[in-house]
């Protein structure tokens, strides 16, 4: 385990204020999900999950086909598709577009994909102003932090934290009433929407058969960001494509319910190309950047490829006893929680933080709530095996890792030689150090093993 990971976990576990904030926010979403998916409310919930899984499986298995269909339909609607390999290619496209159109100000709606490629930092580095317009994202952008949670990026901040941030960054008087804080953000952001040259968004779904970008949100900022400025750029992972608009009947029924417990989010926007002649609003230019950024690396493995089914609802975070304790900022990359624990090693390689797939008790609560049935514990197990394989290949690892490997070899040898096992295991138990006994309430080792007692019956 890297020192940094260890240190962050310890810091989170000893931060009582943050623990309470996480427990209360994720607890509300968790209870919401349970109520909204109860058999009495949504009798076909399990069937919907099965269908969602089957639709995702089909799409990811035929990703090339549906992405090309999506591209054709976006272009038929007057938009343009850009294929981006990585963060640099996304930034290069946005920067050159901004230069050509003499754009200075960009308004953004919430997008994990843009966090993945550090887009704000890259744009600001080149003198552009990029403003997050989702309230939570706005708060953490002002605070200079990363999203803490896929759905609730600022759930670790209470109203007093927000008052501090606004006071310091906006140069206003201290305001601790939540409604007033929202009004302040709203007034500031309204000016940005009106002045922005480019609006950027992510996507919840890309519909292949119509070329539509579908965005669900609660605040209306995504609708404004994608329609008020004269240029709209969507940045979406290639796995967001779905075959047909009618498939949304399955996904939209699951997404908000799994995320917050809402039957439906407040706004569901279908963005289909630029403004057409005769239309009174909408952007003049419409671009969709399809981002790989490591996703195609997951495709060859039939088992692990299901990691790409994720619809970013955050249900696994809300139910995870590990995430609920260590919080979003302990994880080594932008994706936190169980889904982060399987995406990060696959996107960035297991060496990025080899301990990450091991930071789980494999309790399976995540798989139980996943609306698209990603078998997260199983993928964690596969990733653990990959970590060991790469350690062996590269002869890498600290002394401790090598000692562990030897210990497991000895274990396997013992467990396949019953006489050795019968003699050696009790010695191991007798030599158990005191701290380990204390840890597991084992005051004294038993005088006899089961097999000894059984043979005396």
């Amino acid at each position, binding site marked *: 385990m890297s020192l940094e990971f260890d240190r962050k976990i310890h810091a989170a576990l000893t931060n009582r204020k943050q623990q309470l904030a996480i427990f209360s926010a994720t607890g509300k979403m968790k209870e919401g999900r349970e109520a909204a998916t109860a058999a009495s409310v949504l009798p076909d919930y399990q069937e919907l999950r099965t269908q969602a899984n089957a639709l995702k499986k089909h799409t990811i298995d035929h990703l090339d086909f549906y992405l090309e269909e999506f591209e054709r339909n976006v272009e038929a609607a007057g938009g343009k598709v850009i294929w981006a390999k990585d963060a640099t290619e996304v930034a290069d496209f946005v920067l050159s577009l901004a230069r050509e159109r003499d754009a200075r100000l960009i308004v953004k709606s919430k997008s994990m994909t843009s966090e993945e490629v550090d887009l704000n930092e890259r744009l600001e580095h080149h003198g552009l102003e990029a403003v997050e317009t989702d309230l939570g994202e706005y708060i953490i952008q002002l605070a200079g932090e990363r999203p803490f949670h896929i759905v609730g990026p600022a759930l670790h901040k209470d109203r007093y934290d927000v008052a501090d941030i606004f006071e310091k960054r906006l140069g206003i008087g201290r305001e601790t009433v939540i409604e007033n804080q929202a009004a302040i953000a709203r007034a500031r952001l309204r000016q940005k929407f009106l002045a922005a040259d480019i609006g950027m968004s992510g996507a919840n779904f890309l519909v292949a058969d119509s070329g539509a970008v579908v965005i669900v949100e609660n605040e209306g900022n995504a609708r404004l960001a994608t329609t008020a400025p004269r240029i709209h750029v969507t940045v979406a992972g290639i796995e967001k494509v779905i075959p047909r608009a009618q498939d949304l009947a399955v996904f939209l029924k699951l997404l908000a319910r799994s995320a917050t417990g809402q039957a439906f989010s407040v706004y569901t926007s279908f963005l289909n190309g630029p403004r057409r002649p005769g239309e009174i609003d909408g952007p003049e230019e419409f671009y969709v950047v399809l981002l790989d950024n490591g996703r195609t690396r997951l495709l060859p493995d039939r088992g692990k490829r299901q990691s790409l089914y994720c619809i970013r609802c955050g249900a696994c975070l809300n139910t995870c006893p590990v995430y609920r304790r260590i919080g979003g900022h302990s994880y080594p990359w932008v994706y936190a929680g169980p889904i982060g624990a399987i995406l990060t090693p696959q996107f960035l390689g297991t060496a990025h933080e080899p301990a990450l797939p091991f930071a789980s008790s494999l309790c399976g609560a995540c798989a139980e709530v996943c609306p698209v049935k990603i078998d997260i514990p199983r993928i964690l197990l596969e990733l653990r095996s990959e970590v060991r394989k790469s350690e062996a290949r590269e002869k890498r690892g600290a002394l401790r890792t090598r000692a562990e490997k030897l210990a497991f070899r000895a274990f396997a040898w013992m467990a396949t030689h019953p006489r050795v096992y019968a003699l050696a295991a009790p010695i191991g138990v007798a030599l158990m150090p005191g701290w380990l006994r204390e840890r597991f309430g084992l005051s004294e080792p038993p005088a006899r093993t089961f097999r000894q007692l*059984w043979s005396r019956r």
Partner: protein
Amino acid sequence: MSGRVSLFVTCIVDQLFPEIGLSMAAVLERLGYKVDFPERQTCCGQPAFNNGYWAEARAVARYFLDTFEGCETIVAPSGSCTAMVVNHFAELFRKEPATLARVEALRRRVWEFSAFLTECAGVEDVGARFPGVVTFHDGCHALRELGIRGGPRRLLAHVRGLELRELEPAGECCGFGGTFAIKFDELSRDMAAAKVDAIVRTGADAVVSLDPSCLMQIRGALARAGAPVRALHLAEVLASA
């Protein structure tokens, strides 16, 4: 009731909690089963599997197959070890069709103790008496990998003198997770402490589980919290009369 049952007591019970194995045997014999203990048995290989050492896990799993293949019915006092055999052996041998066929033939005959009683033997009242208030901790693998939920509760409900109170929240992990408990000690202890709080809130005299490993984790945390609650395996409760 008749029939032969072979015990897979698991390495934890063999080495640390022999009384759980004896209780399980006693309950099965009381129901009329002929119980044997294949002496070659050791472990299911889960520690190696969960730590990513699949070659080592495979060796132990293969040894398990050799040991138990000849047995008609195998019963284990652990949801987690049962899930290893029933669900994960197949993953270990997915590229070895011949071994996979052996796994398929064996996995249907391996039962977690409570599931054997309620689903195979069709028994819910084993004639036990255990005066006191008891709460039940669902082990994650029994609950979510084997789908065991109602069975152990029905078995407890039939125990004379026993009052069952549900944990709130139910179904949450105790934080054991094998070497997770050692590698992420502080985090694991925090999870155990929350579990103990939930147990204490029920006012129960004892917490009952299907898994010795959960019991270890919970016993340690109960002792640290100074909570006067016993942590018992279901077999121990069902064996008392």
